[in-house]
């Protein structure tokens, strides 16, 4: 546990070095909040009842989504692994007397916490003040939002880990990540909520793990999901968390044997 915090603290501090960078990141989030609000206003002006929820709920969904999505694009375990493979430094990581999954999770958690306190929470505050973000429908919903968001974060970590492991085969991660990123944006409900997806696409979107990242916490927060539907959604999240963590451990063990270290 001590080692875990040491790594987590280290990546937290790296984040603090570049202050200019930080301001730019925050202003990006604010810009996106501003624009997503306008998109929904423009769409609602045309057909107010089309989405099954009120404009306030929809704006809350969009603005909050813009803030919390930063949780998932934080560390990029896939980039770390493929970078280490490219430079050859991966041997050093493997030599460390520490489980590789734990090591990665510690680094990722450090950056996640950095983003949470330095970018996401301030952005949410601005959201409340300027962009029509509303508080959660009930305090219980607020609590469950936090819980499901945490599970979502872990799921995204394992997805990233699987991608990184794949990069040991392709030796390059950028283009897989490109496609993966697009799928995440589409199926996580980051911009367009999953309940707007038509027919089969909608069913597919609810079953895939991506929905656990954003759609589940956001739907609970805005009160679109309530009662038993929340339990089902959390059950699905836990299923994906278990499945992906087992899969990434299994794949890592199989592929570790054939690591090609470039350079070094």
């Amino acid at each position, binding site marked *: 546990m001590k080692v875990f915090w040491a790594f987590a603290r280290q990546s937290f501090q790296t984040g603090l070095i*570049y202050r*200019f*960078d*930080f*301001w*730019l*990141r925050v*202003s*990006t989030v604010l*810009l*996106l909040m*501003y*624009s997503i609000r*306008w*998109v929904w206003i*423009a*769409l609602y002006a*045309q*057909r107010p009842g*089309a*989405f099954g929820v009120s404009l306030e709920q929809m704006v809350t969904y969009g603005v909050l989504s813009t803030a919390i999505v930063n949780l998932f694009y934080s560390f990029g375990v896939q980039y770390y692994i493929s970078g280490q493979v490219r430079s050859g430094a991966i041997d050093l990581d493997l030599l460390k007397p520490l489980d590789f999954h734990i090591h990665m999770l510690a680094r990722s958690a450090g950056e996640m916490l950095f983003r949470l306190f330095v970018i996401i929470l301030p952005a949410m505050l601005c959201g409340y003040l300027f962009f029509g973000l509303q508080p959660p429908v009930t305090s219980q919903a607020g609590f469950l939002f936090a819980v499901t968001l945490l599970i979502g974060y872990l799921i995204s970590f394992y997805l990233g880990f699987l991608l990184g492991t794949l990069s040991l*085969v*392709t*030796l*390059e991660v*950028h*283009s*897989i*990540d*490109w*496609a993966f*990123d*697009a*799928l995440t*944006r*589409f199926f996580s409900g980051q*911009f*367009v909520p999953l309940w*707007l*997806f*038509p027919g089969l*696409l909608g069913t597919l979107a609810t079953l895939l793990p991506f929905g656990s990242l954003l759609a589940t916490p956001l739907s609970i927060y805005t009160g679109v999901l309530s009662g038993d539907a929340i339990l089902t959604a959390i059950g699905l999240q836990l299923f994906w968390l278990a499945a992906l963590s087992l899969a990434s451990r299994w794949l890592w063990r199989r592929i570790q044997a054939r690591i090609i270290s470039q350079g070094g």
Partner: protein
Amino acid sequence: MNGLQLYFRLIQISLLSSMQYRANFIVGLLGLIVWNVVNLGLIGILITQFTSLKDWTLWELVFLYCLWILGNSLYSLFFSHTGQMEDYLIEGTFDQFLLRPASPLIQVLGREFQYLEIADALFALTGLSLAYTRLGLRWDGWHWGFFVLAIVSGTLIVLALNLLVACTAFWTGRSRGAAMVVNQFHGLVQWYPIDIFGRAFRLVVTGLLPVAFMNYYPALVLLGKLDHASPGWWLPYLSPAVALLLVGIVSRVWRLALIQYTSSGS
């Protein structure tokens, strides 16, 4: 060897080196197609709930999106390496460009040929021609000329803006954050017609960071959405002028950046 020859020689070398990663090539092509389909899919889902987004129909939005992608893909194909400037400066590898007897700018630009972007360009052309037939457009020679000019301008605008951002690394040490902000503006302009956002946004993407000249303004002309009675109706025709202006600015800034460059000395 003159500048142009050198540039193409460098491109050729980088192409050979990236061909080593064959698996990545295939995955990369698929990745780009998925990316574009997803982007259009998101707009598509929204529009099926409505008929239009502030009097832009689905196919007009496809046109808007693809016009941006086409200009950007030409940029990425040839010049996408500008984004790496920060790494060269931090690691001190920029020095190697200065030591060789050739223009540093050409060496940086010729660093990489993103052949994958051809997929992007083909996607955009397909999208544009589909939109052209679906919208029942009938362009005369003048429109076709403006279309070609708009694409070239788009490529130059994105090149100049990205180089400008990359140059900020000479002063601040980092440019990725600034690049991210510019990319967000690109992303918004690429997807949505800018008139749905507030007035402030419109001013920014027209005057300050003129990304709207890549697709929105040319699209107004090409889709016949111009209202000649309103004041400022000539603005959409200015894309080529904006592109030239930006190229002029960036060449000045680049020269200044080189003059005050100090190596990180590692």
